[in-house]
């Protein structure tokens, strides 16, 4: 059986700096993986590389058995490899409803239509409503994104990813910048992700990591130093060492 998503020997240098060093990993349907590591470890770079936002120096990437190393960013998304952003990327003059509608229309290959309005497309509206309800954004659906709180914008990031119905979802710190009091809503949203979806989540909040992940991968200075169960990660000597200096109390969360 071949993996749904597989990365082999991925490398990336920025000038002399090696940011991704021989990274290999694979994921299958339904996986819940957390990718952790100190600041600057290369986690976001990894996402940028596999989604086609950056070109790797070497290595290859496969999705559902197909080599996508040469594919551009948009076709990777269409093939089912979707990401969210560490720093929210939204359209500030559009409403949450418009965002989700645009994502649904795009997935359905109807975003090129020059006539009609999504509000007049009942199937689209039903799905938009469903997704907004799932994430508790219905009340805000007609406010401009600039008028809603950052925590709600983070939820909308997840909503957009869901609307694209990916096979593999890479979430870059979905709870970053969200007040502690609101992380529960993010977690709730993560619980609602389809069970057959393979999810890789980058996260610094160890509580969230341990509740979410069945498997933890630790990246330090561009290299994978650990890939195993959440239980084992806290006991691993190299992981402790990597975290010393950045946040020495990483294990206190366990």
């Amino acid at each position, binding site marked *: 059986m071949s993996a749904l998503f597989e990365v082999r020997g991925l490398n990336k240098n920025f000038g002399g700096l090696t940011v991704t060093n021989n990274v290999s990993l694979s994921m299958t349907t339904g996986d819940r993986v957390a990718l952790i590591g100190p600041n600057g470890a290369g986690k976001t770079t990894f996402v940028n590389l596999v989604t086609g936002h950056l070109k790797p120096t070497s290595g290859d990437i496969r999705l559902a058995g197909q080599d996508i190393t040469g594919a551009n960013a948009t076709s990777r*998304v269409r093939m089912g490899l979707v990401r969210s952003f560490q720093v929210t990327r939204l359209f500030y003059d559009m409403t949450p409803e418009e965002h989700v509608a645009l994502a649904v229309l795009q997935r359905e290959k109807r975003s090129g*239509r020059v006539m009609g309005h999504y509000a007049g497309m009942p199937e689209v509206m039903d799905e938009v409503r469903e997704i907004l309800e799932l994430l508790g954004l219905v009340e805000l659906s007609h406010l401009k994104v600039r008028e809603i709180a950052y925590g709600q914008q983070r939820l909308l990031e997840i909503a957009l990813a869901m609307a694209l119905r990916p096979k593999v979802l890479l979430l870059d710190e979905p709870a970053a910048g969200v007040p502690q009091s609101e992380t529960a809503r993010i977690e709730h949203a993560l619980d609602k992700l389809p069970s057959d979806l393979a999810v890789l989540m980058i996260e610094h909040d160890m509580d969230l990591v341990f509740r979410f992940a069945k498997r933890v991968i630790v990246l330090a200075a561009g290299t994978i130093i650990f890939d195993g169960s959440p239980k084992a990660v806290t006991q691993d000597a190299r992981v402790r060492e990597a975290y010393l200096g950045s946040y020495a109390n990483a294990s206190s969360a366990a």
Partner: protein
Amino acid sequence: MAVSMNDSVTAGLPVRRKFDTGSLIGLVAIIVIGVAGYFLFPNNLALLTRIIAIMLLVLSIDLVTGYCGVATLGHAALFGAGAYGAGIAAVHFGITEPLTMTVVGAIAGALAGLISGIVILRAHGLPQLVLSIAVIHLFHEAANKASAWTGGSDGLAGIAPDALLGMFQFDLWGRTAYIYGLVLLIVVFLGLRVLVRSPFGMLARGAREDPIRISAMGASVKSVLLRMYVISGVVAGIGGALTAISTQVVGLDSLSFTLSAESLVMLVLGGTGSLYGAMIGTVVFMWFEDLVSAANPFHWLTMVGALLIAVVLFAPKGLYGSGAVILGRFKGGRK
């Protein structure tokens, strides 16, 4: 906090009104102002028709600049292509039926939009601007060289359109041409209202604000922009065809850098990113130009410059954009 002034918000997702009131207001405004112009300035219909033609060009720039964020100083290429397309069809191919000439102009504009789009969209920022200038110069030079078809620097004369719908001759006072222009403007305005609210319109707005987000949704930003360029070519081409039909001559100035730059200025003056801004900017600029150049033929450019500086300094979103902001504050939040 979130549920404030909007009663429809409390009801969850409301059913949107089928009819778009913004379009209705715009439509009524265009008709009222258009008809008023007809009766108030019966001796100036040629200028009013010219304003409408340039308005179509400015709307066309707004599509790529205002809605998609592509800066261009070469957009007259699309307008001029429409003008020469309609003119050449009439002079060399005997296609003198005005509606057909307009369609030919629209197609020629679309082609020019495709070609300039392919070239200009290869770059970003300043290099993009430079490419757009190169494009307009190349178009200009091509039209100049192909004088057998275009009349070169003498212009393409002898365009004699048939009566509109077989009934209305293009008269000496330019009444038919003006009314035809007004009808074209209304059709284009309504078409663009539909376009900017459509899924594609949303995609284009998104591509301007955050191309990376758009590509993370699986849409190709470049193909969005190129399609918009072609659509904007249709609009500018119709404007060009209107010039050819109404003045019955096409000159190289319709393919000039000056026209490209001036029309971009008109857009900035009115405010980018809204159809009303484009239209208001055109009227104000051309009316001001006409007024000032008559009053003081030597210093009119200085006056236009002063007007521009005033607008950029005191109303950076343009006349319409800033007006809308002030009005919005007045009402304590719009919508």
